[in-house]
């Protein structure tokens, strides 16, 4: 899956999880940019992304992701392997 498609699909997941139809994300989006995105909400987000993309992050990835761009890179990488 290419970056653009991944970003589009990921945007839908973010919109669902944060219940915000207008939410836009890009590579540099971080938890600081989305008010509801706290450490507890991170788990919901990660789980929802895993379900949507039918993959699993490693623990290192979950705790190491700095921004949305890194998440997208991981998703693109995994999609290649599928």
């Amino acid at each position: 899956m290419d970056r653009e498609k991944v970003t589009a699909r990921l945007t839908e997941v973010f919109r669902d999880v944060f219940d915000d139809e207008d939410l836009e994300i890009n590579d540099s989006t971080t938890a600081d940019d989305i008010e509801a995105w706290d450490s507890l909400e991170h788990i919901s987000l990660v789980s929802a992304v895993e379900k949507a993309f039918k993959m699993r992050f490693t623990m290192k990835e979950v705790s190491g992701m700095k921004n949305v761009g890194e998440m997208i890179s991981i998703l693109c990488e995994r999609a290649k392997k599928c």
Partner: protein
Amino acid sequence: MLKELCFPFDGDLIMQSKRKLLRLLKENESGVKLRVAVLGGSTTSDIIKVLELFLRDRGIIPEFYESEYAQYWSDAVFGTPELDEFKPELVFIHTTSRNIEEKPTVGEDETAVSGKLEREFSRYEKMWNALSEKFGCVIIQNNFEMPSERLLGNREVGVPYGRIDFITRLNVKLYDYAQKHNNFYIHDINYLSADYGLERWHELRHWHLYKYALSVSAIPQFAYSLSNIICSVMGKNKKVLALDLDNTLWGGVIGDDGQSGIEIGSETSEGQSYLRLQKYIKAHKEIGVLLTVCSKNDPENALEGLNHPDGVLKPNDFALIKANWNEKSLNLEETAQELNLLPESFVFADDNPAECEIVKAQVPEIAVLNFSDPEECIRYIDKCGYFEVTNLSADDAKRSEMYAANAQRAAAEKKFASYDEFLASLEMTAVIGDFDPVHIPRITQLTNKSNQFNCTTKRYTGAEMETVAKSTDYIRLCGRLTDKFGDNGIVSVVIGEKRNAELHIDLWLMSCRVLKRGMEYAMINRLVEEAKKAGISEIYGYYYPTKKNAMVKELYGDFGFAKISEDDGGNTVWKLETAGYSPKKIFIDIKENENG
């Protein structure tokens, strides 16, 4: 009830859209308020969020106190100013096997292990006693689930130092306490986790990352199970199980197949699975659940089915039997009135998705279970938790119902504005046309199987049907109906014999699967159209009564035919002038053939 939260729900969807669901639920703040303290031995954040959804959906508006991470014991025993001020009405203690402090070590003897068991148990007992003394609250306590690893393999049981042995004994102590104390309930996560799948339950990433003692994906099932106890304690559990008959309590259609033709009893494997279902349902009487029937059937046929010698559910097992041809939503509402219960106390089980859909739309308070086979039916009734048993006072439940009743009646208006609107919502499409050679076997079969919606009950052999199909002396129609739930297949067959400018209807039948959809009107509209094309000015309809076809006694009258004769046996003849026919209103999109 929000459809996303209705059993059987999609847990992943709930987790993903829990914010939105909460927002939707908050649009209607009516319900009983309840102060719930959640004292956790591990992370409880999402458990509380999802629990709130299920509670609000069942009419309980919770307010939560959440202990700091893993502070369950000190909060309970020593209290906190916030908790004391909060004055919980219900305390849920979310501990798991991870919270066991003194585990046995390999090789330890019985005396040492018993000591650990006592100390472990007394930690909990102290906590429960403190809570109930201070708050007089309801307490819900998780039991202990099986661990994810077994160092000793199967030997984790049967020796004093076995860890599963230890957990099992600790659980038994919890159960003993539960037996001796009112307002104390066990949340059986040992069963829940086994049912969910222990390996999936113990999602260790979620433990190491967030200190969730169970997989985040399992939280909806967990919270639902917990909400069932709370609903039951609050008198919000369901009281009536209303059941369809055909293909629900037995296999087949009693009106068409007769008592000897339906599947129930130990003779066949299908019959056995329905028998098992009947036994399971009958057992609900012992837990105080009222059983009723809500079936589209002639009453005599319904009783004939229920009196099947091999069935275990008999007519007198039911508080009320509604077997007629009215809409099921109306029947359920009437049943509720006659039993003096609210629709919200009802669970309705039916194999037919269209019937389920209309009940959900018309009476949203009723919980609906739609299943595809008897095994699934048992599983749904068993896991839906609607009949969760606790020992609440019957008076409490009644009182709240009486208060709720007036509000409920006023609110029972929304629904579809009319039955027509419902029909339109089904998005029906029909293909109506002459007999196609490939469909002759199905058409012939219908003439031999349909007994209820069948005016003349004329039977045809395959060869006779071939002859009719080839002859130019007939107008033939067969109709296939599709709706948004799927294809019903060929459901109606009409054969009329032409005699000069007259058409005599030898056969008019329809499958009862599509009753009250307007399919018969689509057929008569088309028949008149074809008749006019063929130069027919008069159409004659015949009704020959049998034990089973009372429902079509007035069919031709309904179509606008005039009754011209009736004999002593009740046989009637009807006549229609094609020129004066005004087409019946239908909500079905008609197509000429399969392709278009």
